[in-house]
Each structure stands twice: as structure tokens, then as C-alpha cells.
């Protein structure tokens, strides 16, 4: 199960209650509190920034290939299979492969002449907006959420033996 993404709402609303607050934090709070005991705007902003910085610094949750398989089958399965060319090309081995080189698939000229190699970053960009990666491509299907893209890519990588 992927943990929920951190956001400002994860700053406890009762953060400035003394209970459980470490002495350093209490001194910091006293030094930066208003006379009515509420936190100053700068402190709240500082904490928010610190939380966001921590979230950015934390390692990204590992992509989930099993969830990626479910997503692949429901989202990509209308047009793709691992081992057969259908509306789109077969996907086994796609990770690490140059774009437009699945055997016996009839690609658009744009994809065929592209120099893109399908790896983590290129696949993520492709699934975000294919037209931005290879103008003139024919897929146009987009996956909006980064975690969904990461899991689908993890599955494709796994099925490509990479």
C-alpha cells in the first residue's frame, strides 16, 4: 500500500500545544509566539516549508509492479498486449528498447524516426503527454497521476527483464 502523499494538512492543527513538545521547540515557540499564544505566520510558513522540504528529500515510495500490472491491464489493455501487436505494439521488452522498433508493428513515421530510448524518464514523459515527447505520434493516451505512471513503468520494466 502506497503511503499518502504529504501535504500541508499533515501539520497538526494543535502543533503549538505544549504537551509533548520538546524543550527546544517550546523555547522556539515562546520566542516566536504572539501575545495571544498563537503561532506567528512566519513560523507556520516555516514549518510548512520544512515539511515540504522533508517530503521532497524523502526517498520516493518504491514503484509497485503488481499494482502496475492491474493498471496496465485496465488502462493499456484496450490497445496493447505484452506479446502481440494490436492497436499498439507488443510491450514485452519495451523497457530499454529504442522507440519504433517492436518487430512487425506498423509505426507512425514520427515514432519510427525518433531517437528516444524507453527508460524511466522517457516512459514517464511519454505517459504524461506522448505528443510532447514525439510530435506526430499516434498514441495520445495520457496517465495523469505520477504514482500510476511509476507503477506501470515498474511493471513494463519487470516484464522486460530489466
Amino acid at each position, binding site marked *: 500500500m502506497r503511503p499518502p502523499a504529504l501535504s500541508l494538512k499533515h501539520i497538526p492543527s494543535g502543533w503549538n500545544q505544549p504537551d509533548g513538545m520538546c524543550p527546544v521547540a517550546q523555547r522556539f515557540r515562546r520566542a516566536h509566539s504572539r501575545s495571544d499564544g498563537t503561532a506567528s505566520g512566519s513560523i507556520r510558513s516555516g514549518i510548512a516549508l520544512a515539511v515540504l522540504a522533508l517530503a521532497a528529500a524523502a526517498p520516493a515510495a518504491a514503484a509497485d509492479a503488481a499494482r502496475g500490472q492491474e493498471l496496465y*491491464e485496465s488502462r493499456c489493455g*484496450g*490497445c496493447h498486449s505484452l506479446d502481440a*501487436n494490436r*492497436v499498439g505494439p507488443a510491450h514485452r521488452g519495451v523497457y530499454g528498447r529504442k522507440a519504433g522498433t517492436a518487430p512487425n508493428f506498423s509505426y507512425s513515421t514520427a515514432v519510427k524516426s525518433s531517437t528516444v530510448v524507453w527508460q524511466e524518464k522517457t516512459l514517464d514523459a511519454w505517459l504524461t*503527454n506522448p*505528443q510532447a515527447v514525439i510530435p506526430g505520434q499516434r498514441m495520445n493516451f495520457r*496517465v*495523469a497521476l505520477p504514482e500510476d505512471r511509476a507503477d506501470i513503468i515498474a511493471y513494463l520494466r519487470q516484464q522486460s527483464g530489466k
Partner: protein
Amino acid sequence: MTQMIDLRRRGLLRGSGITVLSASAVALLAGCEKMASAQGRGTGNGSTANDVGILNTALALENEAISAYQLGAQSGLLQKPVLEVAVLFQTHHKEHRDALIATIRKLGGTPVPAKSDAEVAQALNAAALKNQTDVLRLAQRLEKGAANAYIGVIPSFGDRGLAQVSARLAADEAMHWTVLTQALKDPLPAKALSFGA
């Protein structure tokens, strides 16, 4: 009023050489005529070409669905009333196909040809289908994939009218999926927003 609009559209379609279109195909094209007309005057741009590309991918998907239902109907594995439902759904896909072909042509594009049933049978591993449940499962999987495909291309359309058409096609596929899911006695999704996710 509605009838007048429909009659005008039918006349327009006849005038452009498209002779046989179902009522649903005509309805699907509604709202696309202004864009098609602009394209004909040479005011089209890259986004129109991209929209034609999306419609052609949708056409390939519809062609595959038509073949898949054909294979199912001819397999001898479907009994009544499931067979009649499968034939009805194939009719829907044929109407989608006709509407897509008409729209692609009106936008100045060339519709992609359909693969043969034999090619589709091989790609979908139809030889592995042994009973009615297998056929229904394949259809259910394809319909869900088609619904999600139509949802997933909506942000890529340059024309909002075509994006709406994509949503309407997705709704048809979702309806097919729901009926197939009931026929298989599968549980319905416990949570909302189960398509496109």
C-alpha cells in the same frame, strides 16, 4: 427543432458523399461539422492533424472490437440470450466505426484499414477460448480497456467537441462492460470512479 437539425445534418452528409450513416453516427458527428468545415477551407492546424490521429487510433480499436465479437459469435460458444447481446454490442461498435470513419474523412484524414478477423484472432489468442465464460471475459477486458482508452485520450484532443465525442464513446463501452460483468456474475465496483483509474 431537433428534427430540423437532424434533417439538415443528413443533407450535409449526403452532399459530402457519405450515404449510409446510422442515426447514432449522425448524432456522434454533431458538433464536429464546424471544425470539419474550417479544415476544408484550409484553416486547419497541427491540432486537427493530431485529432485525426487520435480518431484513427480509436477506429483501430473499434475494428478490433468488431472482429472480437465476430469471433465470439462464430465460435459456437455463446448461447442465447448472450449471443444476441454480443451481436447487439457488435452493432454498437460498427456504428462507432462508421461515425469515426465519417469524421476522419470530413477532417481530411484517411481512415486506417481494419485487420482481418484471423489477424485479430491471433493477437487476442482466440484459440484459447473454450467456453462462454472465456468469451465473456475477453469481451469484458476489451470493453474496459476501450472505455479507459477513450477517457485517457480526452486531454489530448485539440477540439472540445471531439473530446466530448470520446466521452460518449467511453460511456457506451462502460455500459457494455457493466452488462458483461453482470452476465459473469462479477461484483460491481465497490468504489466510485472505477474507470480511468
